[in-house]
């Protein structure tokens, strides 16, 4: 797929293909969704298998599970405060889902569902809906005061309110495009340099040595991608927490 007829095809890795035969085709179940299911399965496995002893002194897997738990808990409680504990499972699921999506995508032959704008936008819209519903449920009509800060001069309202509304509505856009762009860019770079390895390597004995350079670049890129995978999951979780903070406290 990488090099078809000596051209660089960096985008076909993002193509959606139905899986599970005719049933999958009938319900539109693509390999993207299969990877989502795999991620959920792995997360469940980590927590169910890792926590099976419920030991006071944790083993390796239990340590990993507890570390992830405490990390996300720290993010949520640190941003939202103790009222935010109610939303902890939601933010935790978001963080794990994005983290595992990013990490799984780095495996050969795997598909990165977070490289699809539809998926990241779907998640971002979910965050947007949840935060808005939480804000409305907690504050009722006072929530709309969020768009006009108290104490601002009234004649500024025609400027402030549209700006605030646009910035509020653009949240899911920036949230989804950030993750999507990071993932796509990383995977395109990986694929391009992987193609270079194959193309240069096919030039014979000289080419084998020449291919070492893009190979080294790809090794470095993989390390960088692991960092980005974690960082973007963290960013997604912490932005969600900040939005939840705004929803709970209104500024």
């Amino acid at each position, binding site marked *: 797929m990488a090099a078809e007829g000596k051209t*660089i*095809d960096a*985008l*076909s890795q*993002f*193509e*959606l*293909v*139905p899986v599970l035969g*005719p049933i999958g*085709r*009938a*319900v*539109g*179940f*693509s390999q*993207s*969704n299969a990877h*989502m*299911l795999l991620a*959920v399965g792995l*997360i*469940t496995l980590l*927590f*169910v298998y890792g*926590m099976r002893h*419920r030991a*006071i002194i*944790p083993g390796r897997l*239990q340590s990993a*599970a*507890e570390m992830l*738990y*405490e990390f996300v808990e720290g993010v949520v409680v640190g941003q939202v405060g103790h009222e935010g504990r109610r939303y*902890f*499972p939601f933010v*935790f*699921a978001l963080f*794990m*889902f994005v983290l595992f999506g990013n990490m799984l995508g780095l495996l050969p032959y795997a598909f990165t*569902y977070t*490289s*699809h*704008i*539809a*998926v990241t*936008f*779907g*998640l971002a819209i*979910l965050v947007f809906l949840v935060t808005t519903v939480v804000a409305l449920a907690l504050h009722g009509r006072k929530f709309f005061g969020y768009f006009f800060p108290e104490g601002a001069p009234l004649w500024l309202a025609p400027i402030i309110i549209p700006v605030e509304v646009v910035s509020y509505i653009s949240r899911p856009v920036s949230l989804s495009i*950030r993750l999507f*762009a*990071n993932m*796509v*860019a*990383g995977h*395109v*770079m990986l694929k*391009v340099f992987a193609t270079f390895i194959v193309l240069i390597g096919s030039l014979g004995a000289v080419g084998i040595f020449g291919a070492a350079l893009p190979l080294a670049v790809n090794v470095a890129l993989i390390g960088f991608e692991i960092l980005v995978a974690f960082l973007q999951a963290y*960013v997604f979780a912490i932005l969600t927490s900040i939005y939840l903070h705004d929803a709970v406290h209104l500024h």
Partner: protein
Amino acid sequence: MTRLPLAPFWTACALALLLSQAPASAQHVTAPAPTGRVQTNAPLPGQQGESVPVQADSDRARAVLEANRTAAEYQHAAREAADAGGMPQLDFANPLTIAQVIWLFVIFGLLVFLAAHYLLPPVAEVLETRRNRIAADLDAARDARAGAEAAEAGQRDSTARARAEAQASIAAAAAAAQADAAKRGEALAERLNAQITEAETRIGAARDAAMGALREAAADAAGALVQRLAGIDDKAAVDAAVARELAARNMGAA
């Protein structure tokens, strides 16, 4: 803080790559309209033969429906989009693009449900148990330290008491010894005084006796002298004279 600084650079890279594929797409006359539903009667280039099997007439209707969703259709649509220079992510003609979002909500909802009810409570429980255990152990350690301190204080107390008792008994013994010594000294002094007095009495008596004898001898000698010289034998007068003379010398009285 949240935005990766390299993200714009990457996005630029991705865009550059997209643009670099644009000349390839220009060779195609027109990209087919992204309808998402490809007519089964219209031949799919190079793929029709292998992916649409020959069906019996009775299954014709079902086959048509089925064929609308063959793998060939998806791959064809994807290929068209890729040839057109678009990203597969933006190929909304592909029904899978939207279908995956529906599945996303189902699967993500499942994850939230699992996390809230099955994955997170055990972790919270373990962390809580550990916190309690550590707190209890710290309490026990604090108690043990307090006990040790109390024991040490008791020990210090009893040491001080023992020392005080020892000192008291030493003082008592010393006082008793002193009293004893004083008593013995007193008795000794008394006895010595008695002996002194007795000795003095004896000396006095001896002297008296000696003085008595002296007086007699003096009177005898004086009488004899007077008789020899004057021939007077007046014993009484001599005695009186001797007594007077002795008294004058403060010896006769003793």
